[in-house]
């Protein structure tokens, strides 16, 4: 277990401990200013703990479909387990102040996804990211 991770995800899905959280938040905000206020850290933590749930919280189901999350196939689950482990390692480096170029790109991607992706994933709180840029609410949103 490394510094960027708390021992267990908390009820809220928190993954990063206090100091790591602050450094990671700063890194996300440096990429997309304002992203943290819209939930970017929460977005990242939810992604890193997506497989701790059944079904995994990777793909939101459509609103009104009677389910919240779609099933993930066994092979897809294995690929995501590997990908998420690598993301953990990347955020460890970010928290330690030693990100690689690829880590910075990952933080950029997550800051963009968190600010302008659907609120179902923990970012873009109340659709505020979309309102800032005049993007209309989707006609067929996922379950939030």
């Amino acid at each position, binding site marked *: 277990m490394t510094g960027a991770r708390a021992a267990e995800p908390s009820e809220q899905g928190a993954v990063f401990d206090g100091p790591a959280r602050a450094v990671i938040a700063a890194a996300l905000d440096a990429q997309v200013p304002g992203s943290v206020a819209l939930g970017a850290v929460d977005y990242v933590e939810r992604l890193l703990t997506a497989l701790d749930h059944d079904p995994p919280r990777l793909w939101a*189901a*459509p609103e009104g479909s009677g389910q919240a999350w779609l099933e993930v*196939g*066994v*092979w*897809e689950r294995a690929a995501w387990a590997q990908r998420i482990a690598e993301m953990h390692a990347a955020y460890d480096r970010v928290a330690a102040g030693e990100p690689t170029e690829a880590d910075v790109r990952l933080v*950029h991607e997550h800051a963009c996804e968190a600010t302008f992706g659907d609120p179902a994933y923990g970012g873009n709180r109340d659709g505020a990211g979309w309102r*800032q840029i*005049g993007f*209309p609410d989707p006609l067929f949103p996922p379950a939030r």
Partner: protein
Amino acid sequence: MTTADCDAIVIGSGPGGAVAADVLTAAGWSVIVLEKGRNHLVSLDPPYEPLRHLSNDEIAMVRRHLLGPDPRLEPRTYRRHADDGDRLLTGEVNNLPSTVGGGGYHADAKLPRFREEDFALRTTRGPIDGADVRDWPLTYADLEPHYAEVERIIGVAGETGTNPFAAWRSSGFPMPPGPDMPMALVTTAAAARHGLHPYRAPTGANSVEYDGRPACVDCGFCGRYGCPVAAKGDPIASLQRMLRTGRGQVRPEALVTEIVLDAAGRRATGVRYLDLAHHPDPPVIELRAGRAVIVAGGAFETARLLLRNGLGGDLVGRHLTYHFQTFTVGIFPDDTGGDRGRDVTHLHDDLMIDTPELLGAAREAGLPWLRGGVTEHGSAAGPVDEALMYPGGPRHAAAMADSSLRRRMWVLTVQGEDLAQPANRVDLDPSVRDAWGLPAGRVTYRPHRHELAASAYAAAVHEAVLVDAGAQAAFSATSPPQHDIDLHASINPIGIAPASRHVMGTARMGTDPATSVVSPEQRLWDVDNVLICDSSVFVTSAGYNPTLTLAALSHRAATLLTG
């Protein structure tokens, strides 16, 4: 004598496989469709309703591979030519979805027909040095009844009489066109002022309720998204029809690894597949087909499967073509309204037509002729996509608010005809493997100078059109990029490999086994009860979106097979 599990096995459930399965079951054959991806499309139990797994969700669809393939499980590799070494990149290369429905599920379904001369390029235009220009072994007239039939099955909305270059048709479109995107009216008016002839795109999205499926509501999440209301007919309509006969089944998570032959090696008796519902050791299942095996894995995966099995001869994988895409981007002062609509509602064909200007451009390039491609008037970028295009930092919010690459953007995209070259190919990567230990497919591709000259011509024409339409700035880019690859490796939003999802030509059809992989009936020359029913069989790429043509070919091949 062993009994067969079915009359025919169809490998792949995209538009090509679905149409073949539909025709075969309608003719009384029993069919099992094997699809390596998972099922998010249609319930496989009566009454076979759409599954409705999909929403307007950029994260799941575009960022998290919901419709597959996950590039970690199924990596592909790319290089421009052998001098690049074994590969330049590993990951996503022309990935079409791997899911029940294949790429048809999330295409935005512009479904134009080819024209008469597209099937006879060698005769009508002649050879070009360095390219392998050939006629098809069939004519437009041979295919026309099948075009009409698949337009009816899929449900294509369109209008006749507005495209002066369109080929003749035996019947009208099954539906009128859907609503126009407002900005398309602005750019088509400008195009007309420049002597071009725009028309409403034939589109496989219902403009009215059709075949029990509702009309499109222009949700704005069309290309790269499955339709939340099943208003796109391709290929759910074919799969539902097949399932309703009671003679067809679809098995998702079934990765075909082997085509099994009889002792003489002349007939396929069935296939072996991995049952991917199991991890980490998927069992191998053998299925026997009494009459035929239809390969419809898409032009990339079909070639990969044939190569792994040593089937089809030395030409398999060669003559890979894409559409050489030229994107002319206009930045307008105001909102272009692209957040709603079907992405593309209008096309023009003019760059496919010999004009004195195009012939002049050909002469300047030292070529006998040039062909551009169909041009799409449209807009399609989600907000996450847009955000990723701007560098991180203090100016990011201002760039998003300004939104030159989404809200104020409108794009003319040319699906440029790509000439076949033997060195452009899919083969097996020497060391990269997929999650099941099978060699990854590798693309070796670089454009012919024909494509570069046609692209330069198109860019100049379209930049002028967009400026006339009111753009403050217009610029053009191509895929693949034409400049130093290092400039593009990490920053180019469309990447260094060809971004086109129109993949063709890897198992060409012809009348001579020495120069083709399949016969005019789309049968492998070496194992004649194996048919290829996807765009692998294209002899030329033409400058038109390929799916209606590959579906019509599949319809024809399956119809000939059942007699």
